[in-house]
């Protein structure tokens, strides 16, 4: 049975993907720009383009993986949890996973074994925020509408990132064929 015949239409899928693409690409590019001043000291422009192309390739693969994970969850979990209103819930899940992961990369939480009180508290806080956000979208229809409307705008931005990804993939191919 195909995806579409199980209650997930193409536009929902696209919206969820956009909510994965957007935060992941913003974060990856920001981290790259954070290093840019150090890289410009030692690399040529073509090498800098190459480094950013690899970063974009990584972000594209990561976006696909996260969207795939959300889709898989939609089929594995009971239909009422995620598959119904997939556009809304899947998008919210993608966004929250990205934001939670970004927060976990900040310098004040260090996830290493054994987990400290701060890290455990952080995980609990993320779960609480997830629950609160889902409750908000579930409880207030207007909030859900605003969220989806925002998603449609994010979709446009995500398409820009995807175009950059395609350029990045081409550059990676050229560099590897030519030996940089």
């Amino acid at each position, binding site marked *: 049975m195909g995806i579409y015949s199980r209650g997930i239409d193409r536009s929902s899928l696209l919206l969820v993907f956009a909510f994965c693409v957007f935060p992941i690409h913003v974060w*990856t590019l920001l981290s790259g720009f*954070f290093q840019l001043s150090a890289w410009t*000291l*030692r690399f040529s422009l073509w090498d800098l383009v190459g480094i950013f192309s690899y*970063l974009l390739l990584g972000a594209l693969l990561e976006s696909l993986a996260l969207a795939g994970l959300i889709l898989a969850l939609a089929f594995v979990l009971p239909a009422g949890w995620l598959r119904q209103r997939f556009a809304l819930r899947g998008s919210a899940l993608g966004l929250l996973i990205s934001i939670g992961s970004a927060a976990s990369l900040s310098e004040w939480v260090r996830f290493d074994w054994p987990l400290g009180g701060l890290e455990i508290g952080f995980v609990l806080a993320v779960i609480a925020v997830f629950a609160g956000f889902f409750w908000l979208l579930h409880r207030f229809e207007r909030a859900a509408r605003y969220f989806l409307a925002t998603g449609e705008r994010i979709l446009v931005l995500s398409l820009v990132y995807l175009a950059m990804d395609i350029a990045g993939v081409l550059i990676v191919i050229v560099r*590897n064929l030519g030996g940089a």
Partner: protein
Amino acid sequence: MPFSRLSRRDFLKLSALLPLSQMAWPLFASEPKGMQAAAGSPNILLLVFDTLSAAHMSLMGYRRETTPHISAFAERAIVYHNHYAAGNFTTPGTAAILTGTYPWANRAFHLHGLVDRTFEDRNIFALLSEHGYFQTAYSHNLLVMSLLHQFRRHLDAFIPTRALCLVDNQVSDRLFFRDYTAAFMAETQFLNSQRIQGSLVFSWLQRLVHFADKREQRGALQGRFPRGVPELHKLLFVLEDAIDWSILQAESLPNPYFAYIHLLPPHEPYATRREFVNRFIDNWQPDTKAPHFLTKGVPARVLLRQRRFYDEYIAYVDAEFGRLIASLENSGALDNTIVVLTSDHGQSFERGLHGHITPLLYEPLTQVPLLIRLPGQTARQDIRALTSNVDLLPSLLHLVNGKIPGWVEGRVLPPFIDPALAQDRRVYTLEAKSNPKYGPLQKSTSAMVVGRHKLLRYQGFPNLDRQYELYDLESDPAELEDLYPSRPGLAADLQAMLENKLDQVNAQYGRGAP
């Protein structure tokens, strides 16, 4: 099966077949690039132990007995007592060894920096390949791998880092071998950055995998390595594997060969083997030196403890070096081999500094060991002239009767030339990791040693335009008394020498990037 897909276990198993290459090589090999080897050309085994400070070796007079096996080896070798690295961390230190030039010429002075492209054909591999040498190179250190990738077209066997690592989850050299450095920088930023990783999802998976790997290896090796499994850049390794592999190389590579083997120990973290743990618990206190204004001011008790761990790690390295030499001697592999032992830079445990990525260029950071044993050498020879790692390339070329190109900045080492020629020698060490690659040196530290004196020059650091320090290394080897204010005449002479040199090397970069 390409090398890059071999696991460490497969690689070590296949290494056992290397002796067959002795028979098979003449059947299958085309003549190596360049000229045919001169009959009887010696093999060259160049062994670099990363971060091995001469100041911490008992061979060089250190108080703790850290290097008994290297001292035994020295009894049949040439020992250089005033030998300097050209940089204070791996990239510039190694690029100088491999190109015979200072960092200001080869421009490899950043972390993961690369040499200027002209040096892709101006290096020891390119030059020795013209003499028919079979050439191989290996490094645990990924900074060195970036350089070796630049030189790989001159190598007959390019051995990936993972070949001798217990765990290496790096993907860039598996998937993007031809564009290694850009891919590696992106991978590091994406997954392994110590600050902000670029990946939101895969970095989590990577952390989980690394955690599981580390736990597995720790479980397997805890008995041998109580302070943890040796590790750097998320690579886990044990030195014994690399030494076993080096023995196999020396016994089985086609002759003449040149093997460049760059091993990470005793680079931190100092994970020594069980029998060396706590070997140097004593009450010894080195000279107290006030924290330098360019350091973070690591407390003295921390430095003392780290120093002991480092010394105990050196003792482990020394024991493994002893095992290597004994094995090569027993097999007769040393009979026609020049063995060179050196390091890319030293390490600091003083003035509030632990480490080597720093603007400071004091002796423990810049003075490194150099021992050369020629085939059949039975007596020790001590050389006290000033020498530098940039001298290795011209000296090895000299030993194989090669012509030394004009771009080489190093000189042939004594005793291979008349020691009188080394009288006016000046050697330099440069730190410029925050300076633009193709700009004049404006943010850097330079050290120049002339005779018994050493001049340090700091430029471009916060709240500091230009500052000098001057030391007399004979009367004050610990560099405690800055003579710059009290010896203005001498200071002015040395300052003029160093400024002239810097003007000269900066001249072509006056207008920024080419």
